[in-house]
């Protein structure tokens, strides 16, 4: 059959005379029935609902896994086997506090294993599991878990630490790497400090301390210290132990109380820190107050109102006022530097 002939035939003849396959094409000029269209769309809707259910299940499972992962990770990271709580900074004061890798100068959470740099005059008070610790600058140290029963400090510069632990098992190790000295501390209330000229001082309120030191010349010193003792070693001498002076004992006990207050969320006054200007007080505490007494006198400094008394840290001194004599305590700003 010639295609031109077929074309002419299709144009000239009525469709009844067309070849059967072409004749039936007319029947295919149809539209999708609405009932079929609705059925197809219903299938789509069912598929969407099934997919939404699957997505919900997958997301729920993923969230559950993520939650388990975070819980396990936190347990492994912060307190594997010790029941320790997260390491948290309680109190950071003064300038120059930096946590390596943290954009915040005073982060609320102190990750284990990260280096902490304290500038001169800075201090960091923190809750560390069951321990309360004060660290003073200049210092560059790192807190790491040592084993299942305790923690270690690794310091790379002169620093001072005061650690208070509840009686029992906690085990604290402080290692000053710059002087090749390792000190094992097992007391429950103790302080230890090292200075830039490599002098060392350790005070023990309770418990016992095992001090082991290895010097660069290879000589090793081992010494056991007991509660109520202090130990001082000059840069090059063997050192000597003596009874803890009452003043130092009192200082450590007050410090312990202050750390307990901080842990409880109470504001504290750093009486031992010399702050000689309003600007320094504002920078240290993050606030400055104007305290007006009922007799008309007023003081500028950092104030904490207790139940019966108001403690005030001013550029000249730290003193306590009777709450009944105070008319008002209002926030203020440092006056000009020339007046300071």
């Amino acid at each position: 059959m010639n295609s031109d002939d077929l074309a002419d035939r299709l144009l000239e003849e009525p469709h009844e005379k067309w070849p059967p396959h072409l004749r039936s094409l007319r029947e295919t000029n149809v539209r999708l029935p609405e009932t079929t269209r609705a059925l197809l769309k219903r299938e789509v809707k069912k598929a969407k609902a099934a997919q939404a259910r699957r997505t919900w299940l997958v997301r729920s499972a993923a969230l559950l896994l993520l939650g388990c992962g975070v819980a396990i990770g936190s347990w492994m990271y912060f307190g594997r086997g010790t029941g320790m709580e997260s390491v948290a900074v309680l109190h950071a004061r003064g300038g120059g506090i930096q946590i390596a890798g943290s954009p915040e100068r005073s982060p609320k959470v102190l990750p284990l294993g990260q280096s902490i740099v304290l500038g001169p005059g800075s201090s960091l008070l923190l809750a560390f599991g069951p321990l309360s610790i004060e660290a003073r600058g200049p210092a560059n140290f790192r807190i790491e878990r040592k084993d299942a029963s305790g923690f270690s400090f690794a310091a790379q510069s002169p620093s001072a630490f005061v650690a208070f632990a509840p009686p029992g098992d906690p085990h604290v190790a402080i290692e000053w790497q710059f002087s090749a000295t390792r000190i094992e501390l097992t007391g429950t209330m103790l302080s230890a400090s090292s200075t830039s000229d490599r002098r060392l001082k350790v005070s023990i309120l309770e418990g016992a301390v095992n001090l082991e030191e290895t010097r660069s010349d290879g000589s090793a010193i081992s010494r056991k210290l007991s509660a109520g003792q202090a130990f001082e070693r000059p840069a090059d001498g063997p050192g000597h132990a003596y009874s803890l002076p009452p003043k130092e004992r009192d200082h450590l006990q007050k410090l312990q109380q202050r750390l307990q207050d901080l842990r409880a969320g109470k504001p504290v006054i750093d009486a031992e820190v010399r702050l000689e200007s309003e600007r320094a007080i504002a920078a240290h505490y993050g606030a400055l107050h104007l305290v007006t007494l009922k007799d008309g006198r007023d003081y500028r400094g950092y104030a904490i109102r207790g139940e019966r008394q108001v403690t005030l840290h001013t550029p000249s001194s730290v003193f306590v006022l009777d709450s009944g004599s105070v008319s008002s305590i209002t926030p203020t700003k440092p006056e000009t530097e020339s007046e300071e």
Partner: protein
Amino acid sequence: MSAQKVSLDELDELIDRVGDELFAYLTALTRDPERAADLLQSVFVRFIEQVGRGRIERRTAEHYLKRMCRNAFIDLTRADKRTAALPEGFEIPEPEREKKIRADSHRVRIVLTEALSDPELEPVVQTVLRLRLLEELDVGSICEQTGSSRSTVQRLMRKGVAFLAERFREADLTLADIE
């Protein structure tokens, strides 16, 4: 860069866009609108599954659907044949010639239907073919609708049928098989 996949949210729009064409295609193949509707529904259920698994590329979705329709029709004809063969062991012998006619008839339907919507067919030629073969307008009405003279319509019709003949040859068929 990975190809964009069809999502379930796009299917309603896809049904509206290609539903008529696929239904007409299946009707042309099956010569039975009810059967075409059933086939289209089963094709779509499988298509939705594939979409849900993220296996259908947006670029080829329509072509893929059409291929699924054709395969569904071929499966159906095989199934019909199997039904006719029952009961087992009592296959009704079918003369070779009749078997070939039936098989060719299915192929003619496929080639003819696909050729009429082939993208390689010039649009104006396709219009003339559809107006005459599907809507059965007379030559005068086609001239009126396309704004062409009788001789132009005749030329376009010849061109269209030549295109069909070419597609038949490619499928190892001849125009005589249309009869």
